[in-house]
């Protein structure tokens, strides 16, 4: 079997504050195969962004610390790489699109130069060549090259996000991590950006980890889905597994919470309660405090991620026992 492009094994990340330890990511196993788009779904505080930042080794330390696990990228553990190696890997091998395009750009540097800077830092080229490539990238994301001499404030939100995407793809990375790339955008602009991202992904043959809370976006562009809750993966599988045959009560709860455009629902069925405090996580199954099917065992025994069919895994005691 071919090795995965990215293989995260047992990743634990915690942030220490003066008072307590916040366990943001608690033992994540995640694989991304070459050419695939994996959607990482979860609510605020589920540990999605922390996972992404760990791959990039951008967790600020202190307070953050990757306490356990390995992140294998093309078979090499990124957690053991030196800072010098990481600098080379970032953006030429793995690059990231951040959530907020409004703050991801340098306000006092021309757009074209910002893109060229990335290329110059990573490619063996002269500054002139980098500038040429920067213009090409702008055209690729649908912005006239002439506008490269403008500053970020002269661009609209959608265009800024295009620039950020151009920067991320400028060095032909093998893996693109997109952290809520369209959350700050309007729907019609979001549709444009998503379509462009899928096209570019094809064109540059990039794999993608798409972080989002929007299951609609997942349905449109992902191949595989990973659902996170309180720093753990509660369910993962192919698009069909998750959208046709979700098993975990949390995944089902998420679907029932969304007002549907395709069906008529009179009343939503929200998940009761709130996300647990990551400094004080519940024992047993982390979802048992909000789960409608929880039993006594759920509060005491820690469920593991179990395969229910090939490629479809669920972390739930009752599913494991065949009760749900």
């Amino acid at each position, binding site marked *: 079997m071919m090795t995965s492009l990215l293989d995260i094994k047992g990743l634990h990340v915690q942030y220490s504050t003066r008072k307590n330890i916040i366990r943001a990511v608690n033992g994540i196993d995640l694989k991304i195969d070459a050419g695939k788009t994996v959607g990482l779904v979860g*609510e605020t505080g589920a540990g999605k962004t922390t996972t992404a930042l760990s791959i990039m080794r951008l967790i600020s330390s202190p307070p953050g610390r990757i306490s356990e696990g390995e992140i294998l990228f093309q078979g090499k553990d990124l957690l053991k790489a030196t800072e010098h190696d990481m600098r080379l890997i970032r953006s030429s091998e793995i690059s990231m699109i951040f959530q907020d395009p409004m703050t991801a750009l340098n306000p006092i540097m021309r757009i074209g130069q910002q893109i060229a800077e990335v290329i110059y830092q990573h490619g063996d080229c002269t500054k002139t060549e980098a500038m040429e490539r920067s213009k090409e990238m702008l055209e690729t994301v649908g912005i006239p090259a002439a506008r490269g001499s403008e500053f970020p404030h002269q661009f609209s939100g959608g265009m800024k996000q295009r620039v950020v995407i151009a920067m991320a793809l400028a060095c032909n990375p093998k893996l693109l991590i997109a952290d809520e790339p369209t959350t700050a955008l309007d*729907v019609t602009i979001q549709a444009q950006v998503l379509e462009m991202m899928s096209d570019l992904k094809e064109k540059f043959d990039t794999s993608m980890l798409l972080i989002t809370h929007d299951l609609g976006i997942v*349905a449109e562009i992902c191949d595989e889905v990973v659902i996170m809750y309180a720093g753990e993966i509660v369910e993962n599988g192919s698009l069909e597994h998750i959208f046709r045959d979700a098993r975990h009560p949390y995944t089902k709860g998420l679907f029932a919470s969304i007002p*549907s455009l395709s069906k008529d629902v009179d009343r939503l069925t929200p998940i009761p309660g709130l996300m647990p405090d990551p400094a004080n996580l519940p024992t047993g199954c982390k979802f048992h405090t909000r789960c409608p099917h929880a039993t006594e065992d759920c509060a005491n025994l820690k469920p593991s991620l179990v395969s229910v069919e090939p490629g479809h895994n669920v972390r739930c005691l009752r599913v494991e026992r065949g009760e749900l």
Partner: protein
Amino acid sequence: MAELLRVENLKKYFKNPAGMLHAVDGVSFSINAGDTLGVVGESGCGKSTLGRVVIKLLEPTSGTIIFKGKDVTSVTKKEKKELRKKMQIIFQDPFSSLNPRLCVFDLIADPLKTYRLLGRAERQKKVFELMDMVGLARRFAYSYPHELDGGRRQRIGIARALSLDPEFIVCDEPVSALDVSIQAQILNVLQDLQQEKHLTYIFVTHDLSVVKHISTDVLVMYAGVMVEKAKTKELFATPLHPYTKALLSAIPVPDIDYKRQKVKLKGEISSPIEPKDECRFVNRCLYATEACRKKAPGYEEVLPDHFVACHNVREINNLMAEEADHLRG
């Protein structure tokens, strides 16, 4: 059903160094008591401004607002204060719309104090009743906003809006800042309260699935003008305006079996500063003709209770029907 609010040709312009910004440019609609009007559009289309002008947080530039049969467009300060008891607003951002130095109890009691409505003991009782009503546990009464999460803060916002027993509430993106599971909780609270107290809502949002879920009627705005208004079911089943069609097809739907025709829009929203007398959507419209550049379209009742502002609405939709027939065989 009785009409609660009627708005006629409402305009709100803002002065801007580059000229007049036409935030809301001639919007007319009416809402019956107990209904919910969803106002949708993208950022900068004037939907929040519309909500604020309607409850007179902003003074309209021109137009009329008739609330319960009475013209309230130009009222005195004193009348406005009385009017505020009947018309309330829930703001989008539960992180900045609450005074960080007041605890939950004081935040909810604040409107009651302002209007010197109840005695101390009754006020306390009322505040706790309101907290129960919106599903805020009484143990949070003396917590401060920063100690609470977004969902609970939004519940405070709702309790405050309800404290004066209003009949009409403008909900300005009340769930946009919340996670989906919490969003569903808040939407249910709003729906329950509406039934219980026979409230009328204007629900301003950019999220079309939320609008479909909660509204009886929908008004679609684009660059300050209203492009389409219809009953929710009808609007989602048969959108007539090219912008509405594109908007509906742009939403990612969390259902892999849901197939639909995709309409792609090019470009971005045009500037609302000193707009020309043309259709505001003309530069992005797939069906734009000469006529669209000559004059801004007026509203037309194309089907019963279904208003559209588009010169070519009939041609476009016949065309589509023919195309569909042709495709079918």
